[in-house]
């Protein structure tokens, strides 16, 4: 859920960035290339048209040479204009105030052009006449003098021709440029998508694999394709995962070995302890009759044999939880009666304020309930202060038992470790007060009670008025075989 939202929130993810970069690159390149070639082509086309026009004008003028007389008459000008006009354009001939035009058209000559022509230059100008490009070329005829020099004659000849065909070519060119640009943009986007896919798929796979690894599936590996950087990353990932798997496997083996060792040692200790325990009663009975030190020694041996037996039993119990061989022996139990029995068997009935509503029946392992309650109450006596209270409550599907005391409560640093094995909150505490496994075993026993969708729990906390409170919560109907969900 969280991951999904996070992924969707990536406005500038790798894919988008790649797309943008490719599109930008495509557009820029196309714009530069297309506009460059467009302007180049446009210049070339216009230049060619212009050169052709100038050439044609000078060719025609060469045929008209020599001018017979100066100044020309109006008729001369008209004739000249007619002769210089053709399909592609018409001519305008000007001499001083006289003017002749080869076609019916408005006067298009601009003062700048005329000035240039008067100065003796072959001048040209492109103008636009009602949206249509028009090329104006002007020159001044020269007079050959007998000495070979030539003089400006004052006769100005202008050629006016439309550039519409060239404009069409240029327009086609522009359209083509746009089209090319558009196509290349589409191509760039497609390429970007392809590249993004190529990059993102391995990245996604890598992400998936990393998550899977993080969830504890240490056999996760990536398939390495190609020899690029991503393949390198995949290979590194695989190496890391393999190392991790090996090391975790090693650690697990070592841990299993250690646990098996504890279990084996405990089992081995049981036989001598069984022999010793069998005769502790004999020792106890004889201790009173033995003189002085011998009697004390006998009592000590008996006492410590029992402590050692308790410790070994607890160790075996713990190792059975660790190996997953602990099983529930379920029975339908009146919980109030069961708790009362636990307190009575240990002589605690008068020391505990028990609030036990009758009629709460639950399906649980009575031996384990006894172990839990005895541990909690015993712990309250040892570390808390009287009065110890015990409260049984039933909820739909659950039952809870709270064991509280009037002691100073649990410090936060103790609270975090109170169910740890051999954790001793008080360093001064002596071993004879318990194996140090009691609360850990109680915790495991609580968690062993499972039902579909439910799991027993044991938690520690402090009451508002001070004093520690341990809360046991068990499913009302525990089941024998609930699928292990880890």
């Amino acid at each position, binding site marked *: 859920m969280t991951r999904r939202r996070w992924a969707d929130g990536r406005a500038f993810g790798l894919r988008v960035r790649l797309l943008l970069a490719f599109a930008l690159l495509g557009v820029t390149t196309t714009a530069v290339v297309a506009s460059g070639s467009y302007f180049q082509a446009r210049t070339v086309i216009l230049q060619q048209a212009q050169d052709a026009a100038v050439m044609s004008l000078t060719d025609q003028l060469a045929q008209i040479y020599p001018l017979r007389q100066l100044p020309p008459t109006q008729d001369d000008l008209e004739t000249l204009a007619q002769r210089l006009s053709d399909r592609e354009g018409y001519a305008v001939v000007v001499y001083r105030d006289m003017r002749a035009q080869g076609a019916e058209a408005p006067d298009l000559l601009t003062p700048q052009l005329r000035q240039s022509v008067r100065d003796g230059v072959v001048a040209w100008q492109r103008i636009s006449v009602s949206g249509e490009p028009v090329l104006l070329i002007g020159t001044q005829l020269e007079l050959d003098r007998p000495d070979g020099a030539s003089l400006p004659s004052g006769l100005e000849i202008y050629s006016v021709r439309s550039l519409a065909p060239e404009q069409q070519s240029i327009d086609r060119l522009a359209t083509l440029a746009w089209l090319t640009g558009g196509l290349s943009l589409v191509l760039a986007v497609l390429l970007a998508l392809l590249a993004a896919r190529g990059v993102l798929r391995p990245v996604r796979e890598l992400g998936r694999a990393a998550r899977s690894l993080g969830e504890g599936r240490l056999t996760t590996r990536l398939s390495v394709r190609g020899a690029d950087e991503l393949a390198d990353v995949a290979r590194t990932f695989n190496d890391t995962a393999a190392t991790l798997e090996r090391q975790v496997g090693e650690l697990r083996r070592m841990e299993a070995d250690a646990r098996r060792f504890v279990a084996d040692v405990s*089992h081995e200790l*049981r*036989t*001598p*302890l*069984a*022999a*010793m*325990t*069998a*005769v*502790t*009663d*004999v020792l106890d*009975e004889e201790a009173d009759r033995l003189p002085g030190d011998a009697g004390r020694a006998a009592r000590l041996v008996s006492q410590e044999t*029992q402590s050692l*037996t308790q410790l*070994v*039993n607890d160790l*075996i*119990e713990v190792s*059975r939880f660790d190996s997953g*061989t602990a*099983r529930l*022996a*379920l*029975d*339908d*139990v*009146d919980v109030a*009666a*069961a708790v*009362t*029995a*636990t307190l*009575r*068997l240990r002589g605690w009935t008068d020391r505990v304020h028990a609030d036990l509503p009758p009629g709460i*029946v639950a*399906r649980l392992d*009575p*031996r384990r*309930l*006894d172990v839990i309650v005895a541990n909690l109450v015993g712990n309250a006596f040892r570390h808390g202060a009287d009065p110890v209270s015990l409260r049984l409550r039933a909820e739909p599907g659950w039952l809870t038992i709270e064991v509280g005391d009037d002691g100073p409560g649990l410090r936060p640093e103790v609270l975090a470790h109170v169910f740890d094995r051999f954790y001793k909150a008080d360093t001064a505490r002596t071993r004879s007060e318990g194996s140090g496994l009691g609360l850990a075993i109680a915790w495991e026993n609580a968690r062993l009670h499972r039902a579909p969708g439910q799991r027993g729990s044991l938690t520690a906390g402090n009451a508002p008025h001070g004093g520690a409170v341990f809360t046991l919560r068990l499913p009302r109907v525990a089941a024998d075989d609930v699928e292990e969900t880890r």
Partner: protein
Amino acid sequence: MSQVLLIEDHQTVRDGLQLALTRQGHTVDAVATGEQGLDRLRAATADVVVLDLMLPGMDGFEVCRRIRQLGDLPIIMLTARNDDMDVVAGLEAGADDYVVKPVQARVLEARIRAVLRRTAGESRRGAGDRSGPEQHGALRIDRAALVVSKDGVPVSLAPTELRLLLELSHTPGQVLSRQQLLQAVWEHGYLGDSRLVDACVQRVRAKIEDDSSAPVYIQTVRGFGYRFGPL
């Protein structure tokens, strides 16, 4: 007091238990293997067998089954591991009760006395019962003579099994919880192991029911316990 046959392979444990039980006034015959134990039973009588489950050679389960075939001698298992599979298998093999090693002598002694009371105590209880034989369907229960017969044929029941059947049939139609039965039959304090009851019920059913999977006499009341009838 009583004749105890102790079958235990570890010598120190055997010696320790023998010492402690002898001090309690029992006559203890201690052997190291199941084979020896069975030989002793054929040669002499015993009131109760204390049987270690982990034995070299013939294992405790097999010894347990053989003893059951010989007769209705009470058997108390010693389980070295508090292993649920061992306990269940031992009870299925016919053991009456079990204790977990290491065990204090007085705990084992208490169990021995309880199991012996089931044997000896029946006659005492029965002696005061003058109500005569009861007939429940095909089952005839004579509390005074401690005889149960089905269709006129006597049913062979071990003391614990008989005690359980008598306890249940005493109040036909009334549900007894496993814990109540543990207190009444096994004399366990509260929070006994209910598998003792379940295993014993299975054994009794196998002897008195026509179809153990569809019991008529001893019915399971799920969530509560067991009930005799109603027929």
